[in-house]
């Protein structure tokens, strides 16, 4: 999945404003979809994608081209999201998980999408568990790469992924359970 999402060579570092703008525009969809899967909240994913782009422009001189541009953007987006979660926890200003899940469910269904048991299980996971799960099993990053992105130890990444899978497995039994609700 990771390779098909990012065919661009890591060595191609643009210099002009227009080249960087083109590169950011090309990656917007990938970044938005990543943040959407992690947050399961469309307005928040859009805000974070926008903020990530601004940070990327601001800190572009730090991008050395060794990693893929998409990985660099994902790292910025992940850290912005984790910072936001920490801040919300501190300020106790977050929507309840049920309210957020209900809003995402409504939006998914109104766009003609399916709300399956699996999506329901994913929406019940804490964001800091869903993030490594998506990075590992959808984008194919290694434990070490995820640990670096999230600024935690590889052991913590492993245990969060393991816990996430265990929680989903508890609710997910067999093929027939994946039907739309």
């Amino acid at each position: 999945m990771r390779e098909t999402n990012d065919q661009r060579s890591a060595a191609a570092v643009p210099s002009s404003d227009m080249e960087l703008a083109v590169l950011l525009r090309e990656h917007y969809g990938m970044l938005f979809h990543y943040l959407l899967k992690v947050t399961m909240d469309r307005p928040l994913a859009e805000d974070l994608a926008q903020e990530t782009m601004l940070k990327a422009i601001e800190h572009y001189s730090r991008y050395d081209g060794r990693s893929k541009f998409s990985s660099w953007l994902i790292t910025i987006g992940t850290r912005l999201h984790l910072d936001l979660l920490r801040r919300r926890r501190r300020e106790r200003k977050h929507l309840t998980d049920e309210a957020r899940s209900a809003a995402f469910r409504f939006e998914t269904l109104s766009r003609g999408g399916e709300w399956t048991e699996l999506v329901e299980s994913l929406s019940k996971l804490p964001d800091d568990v869903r993030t490594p799960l998506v990075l590992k099993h959808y984008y194919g990053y290694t434990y070490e790469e995820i640990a670096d992105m999230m600024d935690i130890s590889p052991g913590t990444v492993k245990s969060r992924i393991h816990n996430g899978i265990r929680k989903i497995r508890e609710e997910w039994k067999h093929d027939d359970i994946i039907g739309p609700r």
Partner: protein
Amino acid sequence: MTTSSDHGNDEEKMLEALGETWARIDATFHAEPAPGTDWTAMVRERRLLAKRKFWTELAILWSVAIPLLGVMFLLITGMQTMFWILEAVTTATAIPLLFAEFKRAGRSSARGGI
């Protein structure tokens, strides 16, 4: 009785279903980036802002460094009165500047610094 291979198959199946679920989420929510001209304008504006920020910080650095170097010079040459006047001026200037810088850093981290 479930064996470890059943367990492994179940997990593989579940991960496959998870991948399909995420792909469906992607397909349901289309990402529509703004036109290219908007992106170029945004990049230009942000880079200009970053440049301004850099020069402002450089100016702050030198406005603190020059009086300090002056103080060192006066200290070496033994001009006691001038030394203490400069010391007072530097402290009066540097403390508000430091506070402003701490406040700015605090606001920046609250917006989600990386």
